[in-house]
């Protein structure tokens, strides 16, 4: 090996990762070559300087900040519905043995409760039901307006709250869907875009959602979002997304892991 090759090994030597044999050979050359020795000393000095580069002390808000974030997350996990948690729970309950029995039991329970309710409350309930239906509609509208307003807030945490709020609704009107799609495509915060994707998956049956999700594939530059939206297409079995996913694979700067994930997703959709 010549000096140029040994100089290319300086960093490796200084990192302490050479084998004993390689290290012996290296040290022998450096001991005999003054030019390499001087340059190695200079590089060692640069490494020491790098190590000595100062880093500020963490403020005393960091740990409480983390603890608050963790508490908020635990709180939201209890109340916010997600495909993941629901899927896991159903998988655990629904075995070949318990599944049919569970289904039959639930059906009996619902039928019995409905029959008892109808027999006891038919006439009085008709009026009450109309009032309740009206109140529910008004409440639903209020929630939708509140959710849309939160989605335009300056704070990412509030926008995430707005998405969570929208996700809790039984169904979403055009305004909410449009607001969620706009957030998915344009929000500067990737955490907000991720929870928005989860909420939109829930509303996949609403008009415009599926096509909106497919169109969103081209807009996503974050590797996390690209992988998440590819997974979403498989969950929804949205075969119309194959073209957009294939276009995504052609992007030059595409992350290698995302490339593999998207390829797998396309295979599952074809």
């Amino acid at each position, binding site marked *: 090996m010549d000096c140029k090759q040994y100089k290319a090994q300086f960093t490796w030597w200084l990192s302490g990762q050479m084998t004993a044999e390689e290290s012996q050979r290296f040290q022998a050359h450096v001991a005999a070559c003054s030019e390499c020795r001087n340059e190695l000393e200079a590089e060692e000095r640069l490494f020491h300087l790098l190590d000595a580069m100062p*880093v500020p002390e*963490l403020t005393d808000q960091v740990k409480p900040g983390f603890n608050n974030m963790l508490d908020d997350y635990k709180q939201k996990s209890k109340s916010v519905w997600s495909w993941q948690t629901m899927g896991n729970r159903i998988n655990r309950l629904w075995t070949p043995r318990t599944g049919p029995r569970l289904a039959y039991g639930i059906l009996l329970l619902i039928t019995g409760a409905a029959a008892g309710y109808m027999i006891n409350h038919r006439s009085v309930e008709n009026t009450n039901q109309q009032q309740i239906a009206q109140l529910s509609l008004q409440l639903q509208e209020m929630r939708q307006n509140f959710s849309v307003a939160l989605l335009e807030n300056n704070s990412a945490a509030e926008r995430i709250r707005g998405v969570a709020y929208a996700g809790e609704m039984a169904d979403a009107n055009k305004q909410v869907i449009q607001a969620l799609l706009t957030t998915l495509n344009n929000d500067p915060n990737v955490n907000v875009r991720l929870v928005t994707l989860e909420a939109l998956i829930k509303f996949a049956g609403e008009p415009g959602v599926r096509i909106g999700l497919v169109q969103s594939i081209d807009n996503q530059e974050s*590797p996390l979002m690209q992988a998440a939206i590819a997974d979403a297409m498989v969950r929804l079995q949205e075969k119309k997304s194959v073209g957009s996913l294939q276009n995504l694979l052609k992007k030059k700067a595409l992350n290698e892991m995302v490339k593999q994930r998207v390829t797998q997703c396309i295979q599952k959709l074809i």
Partner: protein
Amino acid sequence: MVQLTDNAIMLTVKEGNLDGMALLFERHHHPLFKFLFRMTGDHVASEDLLQTVFYRLIRYRHTFSGKGEFRTWMYHVARNVLKDNAKKIKKAGLQYNIADFEESIANGESADERVVQQQEMAGLMDALQQLPAEYREALILSRIECLKYSEIGEILEISEGAAKIRVYRAIDQLRNIYKKYNTKAGVDGL
């Protein structure tokens, strides 16, 4: 008492023991902050990014397979957080301010020595700022927690050999930039 490994703790977090993340935070938030700060030069942004990384580790805990090291996965997520916030960080620019660190770096016996030390460190900080991000991150990862090239390769999604070359090129470029700075400043540099 047997200490649980990072992987073992993260697998319990994956199963629902979210409080386990507090232990992982305790173990790793300092070196992770160092990485983020050296990449951005911005103290406030680095603390925010630190919280974002841990949020994502919790949020995407189901993607942790346990096959690789937790630390590798954590730095991988940290890189993605940096990429996702690249536009914001680019606007702010690297913001090392040498005056903030005078006491910690200038410990020479004479005033002249201390001035030279400060100038050397200012030059190095400036040189690091000028390195392309992919070289800067490889170099910083190799100097934080003494990560092995195999680990650096996994984090950067390149082979071990390619990681070695990248770190070597990074130090080479850093040295050239640093030499120019020292020539201008008239300081005996490397």
